[in-house]
């Protein structure tokens, strides 16, 4: 009897709590079509509108006590400013593509979702569009997005073409932080470099001599860091006028061969020259004999931190990658500083490589009824993060972007200003040089400035990232800007996701990786490269080249 009374009481309690929860929402939002309000992008809806989204994030989100993924400063902002309720059906960092595929197979697409370039098969956009599962966003973009969002098409007219079919736009590119973040630099260990008299590195021979000096005088086990994916090595190719990126991402770096035909970087004779030099580096001990086991975040990084190597070709964000760790493990001058890649001629730096930088696309289900609401949310986020007209104080902004919370501004809605870092770099450097912070108008600027100051004034290791990226005249962005100012830039012709035809090609990446490693290790001569290239073409390279020429020439 007691049990029955207990269960009855429990059932009543549950019923009351459900009724109470239902009562919290004054006016329930709807997913049905709602006439968008007349006026600017920031005019709120009269009737609450609901958007159901999914996001490739989550595990790194931080929420204040009582907040959650569906109730945080950002979701409250959408509601307060636009009367739009954003609800995340699910968010996940790992396995986003698999979960999205499962939703697609089950016919259970969310209203809005992102197709991140790094996680999701880039061919998926084309398949969804041709199957009629994506909403045409052309009119909504033209009518309800902010002028800033629409202006991205003017700044970079090519990227949105990748998501335009028969003149209709089916996806809003998420863009990138600026092409200034694309060129890689030669990062050298500062204390060793200065101990060697900070020699000017103008030629490849200069670089090799510096590497040998690090080995002879500073205990480096080898000269130049190379990782298992060969990406660190391939990014040194511009020194020899060769161009190639991450083979696994199909970054073959396509360019005109002079006859109007687009060819991959590996098919140009300069690549064989690069191979010969890399094989010489290996034979001379400049490359670790275990390079094929060097993981970017594992042994490869450990060797940098433990002082086994002092030169690495890498991204502009090296200061975040290894800065605080190396300062903690070595000394406060042991961090690496960026230099432009030298060029065989010695007369100028090597060209900076620019790959297709777009990080993904925002799409909507064909059954989604309120694309205007999507444009409004996208515009609001952009306004908050990148606009000089954000009517918020630094303290207000901090509410939204304090440690970790900025990520709650999700990829499902975030479009990045493709000039963001170029503008940010100039404003932050100006503020650091003059002390005048009045022109720091975005949250990003504020953080980069504060972090740089933290390193300059107090040697706080967390500030190294921003400092090395943009905080002084020799920063990575300063080096990149020098390349852009002089037009020492080479852009890939494949300015878009890999064409669908790439799926028909075989394991072309495997062939390149295996054979390049054999040549570097001296197991095969570099002169074998033309026959290896024939093999690459026979096993799918031709399909890729034809597809690139069909879509991007």
């Amino acid at each position, binding site marked *: 009897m007691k049990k029955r009374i207990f269960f009855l009481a429990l059932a009543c309690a549950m019923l009351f709590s459900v009724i109470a929860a239902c009562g919290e929402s004054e006016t329930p939002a709807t997913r049905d079509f709602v006439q968008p309000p007349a006026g600017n992008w920031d005019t709120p809806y009269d009737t609450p509108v609901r958007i159901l989204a999914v996001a490739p994030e989550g595990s790194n989100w931080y929420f204040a006590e009582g907040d959650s993924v569906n109730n945080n400063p950002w979701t409250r902002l959408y509601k307060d400013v636009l009367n739009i309720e954003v609800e995340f059906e699910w968010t996940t960092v790992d396995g986003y593509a698999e979960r999205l*595929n*499962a939703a*697609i*197979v089950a016919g259970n697409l969310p209203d809005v979702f992102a197709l991140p370039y790094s996680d999701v*098969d880039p*061919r*998926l956009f084309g*398949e*969804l569009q041709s*199957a009629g*599962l994506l909403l045409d966003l052309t009119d909504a973009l033209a009518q309800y997005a902010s002028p800033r969002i629409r202006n991205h098409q003017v700044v970079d007219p090519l990227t949105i073409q990748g998501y335009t079919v028969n003149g209709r736009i089916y996806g809003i590119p998420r863009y990138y932080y600026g092409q200034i973040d694309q060129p890689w630099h030669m990062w050298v260990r500062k204390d060793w470099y200065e101990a060697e008299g900070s020699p000017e590195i103008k030629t490849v021979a200069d670089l090799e001599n510096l590497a040998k000096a690090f080995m002879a005088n500073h205990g480096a*086990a080898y000269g130049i860091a190379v990782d*298992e994916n060969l990406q660190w090595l391939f990014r040194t190719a511009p020194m020899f006028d060769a161009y190639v990126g991450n083979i*696994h991402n199909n970054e073959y770096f396509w360019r005109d061969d002079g006859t109007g035909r687009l060819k991959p970087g590996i098919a140009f004779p300069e690549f064989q020259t690069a191979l010969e030099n890399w094989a010489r580096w290996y034979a001379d001990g400049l490359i670790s*004999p*275990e390079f*094929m*086991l060097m993981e970017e975040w*594992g*042994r490869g990084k450990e060797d940098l931190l433990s002082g086994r190597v002092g030169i690495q070709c890498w991204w502009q964000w090296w200061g975040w990658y290894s800065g605080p760790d190396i300062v903690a493990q070595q000394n406060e001058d042991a961090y690496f500083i960026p230099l432009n890649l030298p060029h065989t001629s010695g007369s100028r730096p090597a060209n900076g490589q620019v790959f297709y930088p777009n990080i993904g696309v925002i799409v909507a289900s064909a059954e989604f009824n309120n694309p205007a609401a999507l444009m409004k949310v996208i515009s609001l986020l952009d306004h908050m993060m990148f606009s000089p007209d954000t009517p918020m104080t630094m303290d207000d902004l901090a509410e939204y972007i304090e440690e970790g919370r900025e990520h709650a501004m999700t990829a499902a809605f975030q479009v990045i200003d493709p000039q963001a870092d170029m503008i940010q770099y100039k404003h932050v450097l100006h503020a650091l040089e003059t002390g005048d912070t009045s022109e720091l108008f975005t949250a990003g600027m504020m953080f980069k400035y504060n972090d740089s100051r933290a390193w300059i004034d107090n040697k706080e290791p967390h500030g190294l990232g921003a400092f090395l990226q943009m905080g002084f005249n020799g920063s990575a962005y300063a080096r990149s800007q020098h390349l852009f100012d002089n037009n020492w830039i080479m852009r890939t012709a494949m300015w878009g996701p890999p064409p669908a035809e790439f*799926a028909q090609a*075989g*394991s072309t990446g*495997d*062939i390149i*990786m*295996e054979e*390049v*490693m*054999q040549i570097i*290790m001296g197991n095969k001569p570099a002169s074998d490269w033309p026959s290896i290239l024939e093999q690459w073409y026979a*096993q799918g390279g031709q399909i890729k080249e034809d597809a690139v020429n069909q879509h991007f020439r």
Partner: protein
Amino acid sequence: MGSGVDLKGTPASPGVRIKKERYFSGGGRIIRRFGREWPLHILIVPAFIVTAIFSYGPMYGLIMAFQDFSPVRGFSGSPWVGLENFRWLFDQPQFTRTIYNTLFISIAKIVIGTLAAISFSILLNEIRISFFKRFFQTVVYIPNFISWIIMAGVLSTILASDGLVNAFLGIFGIERVPFLSDPSIFPWTMIWTDVWKTFGFGTVVYLATITSIDPEIYESAVVDGAGKLRQIFFITIPMMGPIIVLMATLALGNVLNAGFDQIYNLYSPVVYSTGDVIDTYLFRLGFQNARFSLAGAVGLMRSVVSMILMSLSLFFAYKVANYKIF
């Protein structure tokens, strides 16, 4: 029931009557037993459902091996391509070599691993001080519990050109051995490190078998003048026969699984020629390149071959050693 009258009610011959009596009385027994034991049968239902959902249900997905599958079109909408995926696979030189690599590495692991475990268990059995016996047994068993992710990190460090092993070899003037970067050495590195990691498990099993052998048999052999070696070859090993057959049979069913975790964490493109196995190739092809149908084709082929090998090994185990698992 059991009245000697057939189903139509006409008298039956005595022989027929007996058969029907057995039938009905047997059925009755089953029904009566079920009546008594139904709670136990209910207990097995969840396991049955789980197996059906998670082991048999997903087999439906194997049809993608015969389709040009796309998640957008789904199983019902993806076009059928017959055996095209299999033909494409066998056209790839990389795939055909992975079959050889898989078989070589896998069979070598089974053979050497079995011999190592048998030998060590026999040696261990000869230790008379039980502390040392347990100590060595534990020592060889512990690596079995360490994941290949961690083990790969340890191995890549101690097998490095300036690692512990090469430093040790250097003491004797032996040149540096590229354990993980020389295509001719890499498969053997995989085989021996796997044997080292896993033979402890086999040792425990074989040791348990040896200890269950009747000591009187050894005593009789000693009386007949048999020395230690003769006892091992003519008593211990023959008595271990059924278990060796069982272990080898179970291992044979896994022959196309050369050890994905181990190889994926230790290999590199430079050793693809001898170290790339079906699973690692499948992973690169299916997951990194999103070619689901091809991955499905390889998976199906692997399962079919494994099933055939398992059936053959069961057949030969019965024929040769008169040993039945099922």
